[in-house]
């Protein structure tokens, strides 16, 4: 079971899609219920995977992979073409499990939210939704680069159709732009992937695309800087477009605006994370030197994205476009955190991926609910909705607060950690190699937070408060909608709100599983001689230490087993554990 759970999880939505495809039921109600059931089954399987992940004490505490399944796919041992190790290899660790859970959590909600909006070609719609879900789950579970790439690309076609068939007025243009942008980047990524595998072949005699093997290669310093540079550029080409980073973000607002509600939710909630996840899983660990070299550049683009996205969002009249631009801004934060190359920053960034998925997903849902009633998303044409729609007002304010990082809600934790990471980037306090960022990046990014509060709150004010403005002949209740949110809609939003609150109050369980992974297989540990420098940094900057301790950052490893292992081999079993064991870092 443990070996198969991920495979079953990944392909269960595809099974659901086949069920829909072959069942000839024309009744839209039955089709959508079947789709919802199918995605709920998947969510249940994800939950099982989560429990099994926690049951595996190694995975939950020392950052190793678990629930692995590996079977030969293109594997060759010493024949005419040499040794090839390309396999169907899936597994999860402390980072990917949360993105898996996010996918499993949002997908049924997105499907449920489509019940009232999708009236034409419903069967086809839900088939594509389920196919898309398989692609997303697969990316987060893939431990083989070719498998990763296949799932990465696999998400393109379903979303293309979701936008192109069920989108708004400019849906064709949006869908084409989305497809061409993304594929343009990812073919370059594919070239880099193949070259990387070929390089590994030269070094180790095995043409391998196994992510763990490649990570070892990269962390072992076996890839020369010149090659890393090109590979990083190749990876970045695909991932930055997906994120989207500042100059290549232009497909996103259009795609978001035109996509159907569920498409936007999935796009913002999960698909954008494929880019940041790619950076976390591949670029940083496999190409560490290039990551340091590229960090100022990437972080600059990220900060520009933060400010630019916020300013662009400010001037939008279309609520959906406003949320779309806020995504550009938020993903900028995420990238800034990643390229701080610090424990705090990367943890914050990974947490940000989840949080952004929740809060922005919910905002898109709300925008969709408004649109279904008023058939407009123009801020000037609606107003004062708080009076007829108190539930909507509650949720809109709630998720706005979560999105702008109000303390106590999820956004705050990750935003703070990202900024902390960027600020302390040059330090070595956490036993991680010094990164190149500093306060110069923090200040403009923090301005972005202020701007974020401005445009989001202003939007809330205009939509919810003031005199009631409704377009003529609305609200439209033809699809069984009531003037305020229906029970279905409330039950879609409420779970997201609960999770947002839970993460805001108590993010520790997530952080605790992420940090060992980041220490073990994302960031580069300090070379031995600079440990003392790290101590000096702590001595000079006690505030950093205090801040980190407050966030629970120092609790990387506290349990007895790993401490024992670390004291037996203080240098070899991961330097972080070693440092804690020797009492050099406060534990």
């Amino acid at each position, binding site marked *: 079971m443990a070996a198969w759970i991920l495979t079953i999880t990944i392909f269960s939505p595809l099974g659901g899609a086949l069920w829909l495809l072959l069942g000839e039921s024309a009744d839209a109600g039955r089709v959508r219920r079947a789709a919802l059931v199918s995605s709920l089954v998947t969510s249940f399987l994800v939950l099982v995977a989560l429990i099994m992940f926690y049951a595996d004490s190694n995975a939950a505490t020392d950052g190793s992979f678990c629930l692995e399944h590996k079977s030969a796919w293109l594997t060759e041992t010493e024949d005419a073409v040499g040794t090839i190790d390309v396999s169907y290899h899936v597994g999860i660790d402390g980072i990917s499990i949360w993105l898996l859970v996010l996918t499993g959590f949002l997908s049924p909600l997105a499907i449920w939210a489509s019940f009232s909006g999708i009236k034409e070609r419903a069967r086809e719609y839900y088939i594509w939704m389920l196919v898309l879900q398989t692609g997303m789950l697969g990316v987060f579970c893939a431990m083989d680069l070719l498998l990763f790439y296949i799932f990465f690309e696999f998400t393109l*076609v379903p979303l293309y159709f979701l936008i192109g068939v069920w989108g708004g007025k400019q849906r064709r243009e949006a869908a084409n732009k989305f497809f*061409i942008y993304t594929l343009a980047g990812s073919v370059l990524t594919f*070239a880099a992937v193949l070259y990387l595998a070929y390089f590994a072949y030269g070094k180790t005699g095995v043409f391998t695309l196994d992510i763990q093997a490649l990570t070892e290669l990269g962390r072992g310093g076996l890839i020369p800087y010149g090659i890393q540079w090109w590979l990083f550029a190749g990876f970045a080409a695909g991932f930055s477009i997906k994120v989207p980073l500042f100059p290549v973000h232009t497909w996103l607002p259009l795609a978001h605006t035109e996509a159907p509600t569920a498409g936007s939710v999935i796009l913002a909630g999960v698909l954008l994370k494929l880019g940041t996840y790619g950076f976390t899983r591949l670029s940083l660990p496999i190409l560490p030197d290039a990551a340091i070299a590229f960090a100022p550049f990437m972080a600059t683009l990220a900060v520009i994205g933060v400010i630019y996205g916020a300013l662009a969002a400010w001037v939008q009249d279309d609520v959906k476009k406003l949320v779309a631009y806020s995504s550009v801004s938020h993903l900028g934060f995420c990238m800034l955190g990643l390229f701080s190359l610090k424990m705090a920053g990367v943890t914050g960034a990974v947490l940000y991926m989840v949080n952004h998925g929740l809060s922005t997903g919910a905002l898109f849902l709300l925008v969709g609910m408004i649109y279904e009633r008023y058939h407009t998303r123009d801020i000037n044409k609606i107003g004062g909705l708080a009076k007829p729609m108190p539930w909507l007002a509650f949720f809109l304010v709630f998720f706005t607060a979560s999105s702008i990082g109000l303390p106590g809600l999820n956004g705050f934790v990750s935003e703070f950690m990202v900024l902390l990471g960027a600020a302390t980037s040059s330090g070595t306090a956490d036993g991680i190699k010094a990164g190149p960022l500093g306060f110069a990046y923090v200040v403009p990014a923090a301005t972005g937070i202020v701007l974020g509060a401005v445009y989001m709150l202003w939007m809330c004010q205009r939509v919810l408060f003031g005199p009631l403005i409704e377009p003529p002949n609305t609200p439209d209740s033809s699809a069984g909608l009531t003037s305020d949110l229906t029970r279905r809609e409330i039950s879609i939003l409420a779970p997201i709100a609960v999770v947002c609150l839970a993460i805001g109050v108590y993010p520790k369980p997530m952080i605790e599983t992420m940090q060992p992974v980041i220490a073990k297989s994302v960031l580069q540990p300090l070379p031995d001689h600079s440990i003392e420098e790290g101590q000096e940094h702590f001595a000079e900057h006690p505030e950093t230490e205090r801040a980190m301790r407050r966030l629970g950052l120092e609790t990387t490893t506290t349990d007895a087993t790993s401490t024992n292992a670390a004291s037996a081999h203080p240098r070899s079993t991961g330097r972080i554990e070693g440092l804690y064991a020797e009492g050099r870092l406060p534990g």
Partner: protein
Amino acid sequence: MNQLLGQAWIPEGVDLFRFSPELTLVATIVLVLAVPMIMGRSARLVGGIVMLGIAAAGWLTWRVAAEVSGQGVAGMSPDPASAMLLVDNLSCFFKLILFFFAACVTGMWWMGSSASERNAPEFFVLLLGTALGMALMVGTLNMLLIVIAIELASLPSYAIVAFEKRDRAAAEVSLKYAIFGAISAAIMLYGISLLYGLYQSLSFVEVADGIATDLATGRNGVIIAVALLCFFCGIGFKISAVPFHFWCPDAFQGARIEVTTWLSVVSKAAGLILLMRLVHALAAAAGAEMISALAPLAWGIGILAMLTCTVGNLSAYMQTSVKRMLAYSSIAHAGYMLMVVAILAVPGSVGAASAVSALLVYISIYLFMNLGAFGVVALVYWHTGSDSINAFSGLIRRAPWLAIPMLCCLMSLVGLPPFAGFMGKFWILYALAEQGDAASWLYWTLFVVAVLNTLISLYYYMRVVVKMMLADDGQESVRAPAAGTIMVNLCGLLLIAMLIWAQPIKHFADRFSTNLYSAPVLTVDVGTIDQTTAHP
């Protein structure tokens, strides 16, 4: 030659057995002509005979393949030193593909044309004639036989393209095709005559030896270059490499859809395999110390490949006929396949085994992508009478079970996962990377060009997809014969299956790409020649 012409010569029985697939084809041609004289010109009857003949030929090929799997065999000549025909893994592979595809095309004909066909015997004589030519093309290194094989494959093609006698467009493209073919055949003959004049031999193996000696001593450089250039022009015509591709879109558009399907896959594959064999023989004769002398050859083929796939892809952009678009797409795919042939031009190259195997994998996958895509075009054409892109509008509503396989085939042609076309590209890029690291930056250039071309090609395939899935101008739904629908859906499913079970496909190709017949060394057995040179 004197022996062959002057004295009676009877081939060995084992030679005849190895030659039996071709002989079966010949017998089928005779039957197709003779039986209708007795039993009436029923199209179904002729189709049945053809099916049986193809099945027999395929079965015999399988037997022969099992017999020769360990070695390449040359024979069918009174003079064992200059064998006329080769039977080795590679030629068996191609013949298996050829007969399988012939059966599929006959099936298409059965569904679409047999009801109204008045000239079935003539049609199949021409079709099987081209098949025979292609089967010979991949099984020889004798320059005389190469010319005969290419002509045997080409001449019936000119006629079969214009098989609808009353169709003016078909007549026009047939004339174009014939003129192009005649000129390139003339150029090729000129090149071959130069080579014969230089080395007094028709065996390309001996010619290659001579070329290697001359290159080593620096003699006859210009004349060799001119001769090879002319020679390869003729083959370039067959594979419609740019700039010899102008006939291809016209011929493909004008011909019947089953003929187009036929020509789009096997005629190119045959040309590519022949070219690969010649290049391989040249490299094997030259040896590892001659890499720089053969560099112009590698560059020439490489540049041709880049041009072919880029021009093919760019030309496909604005096409309104899906058939014509697929014709350009087939030019582009010939370009991808040509890339790996450039690897073989490096003597003793590390990537050679991967290259041959990648080519065979690609051909196997390409066969199903094209069969599926042309199959859907055919089914839509038979119902609507149009192969314009507008005929596909709203196909997902009008015929979902045609639109879904079409989507699979087109995405596979782009090279998107999770379809097998991705695997085909993967192995080609793998071979190029392997070679690129070892040899020159030509291969990295090819690598990048191949990757970028994937992106270019996306656009025009997507146009059809957009029409099928996103547009709908309210045309009536398409009724397609059940057999045809099942066939195209099988193609679509196979494309996914071939990605999941990529390993068996690769092993299949590996098995047929090893032990290529190359420079022969005589043993006592007449007609059987040991495989001595390293397999590529």
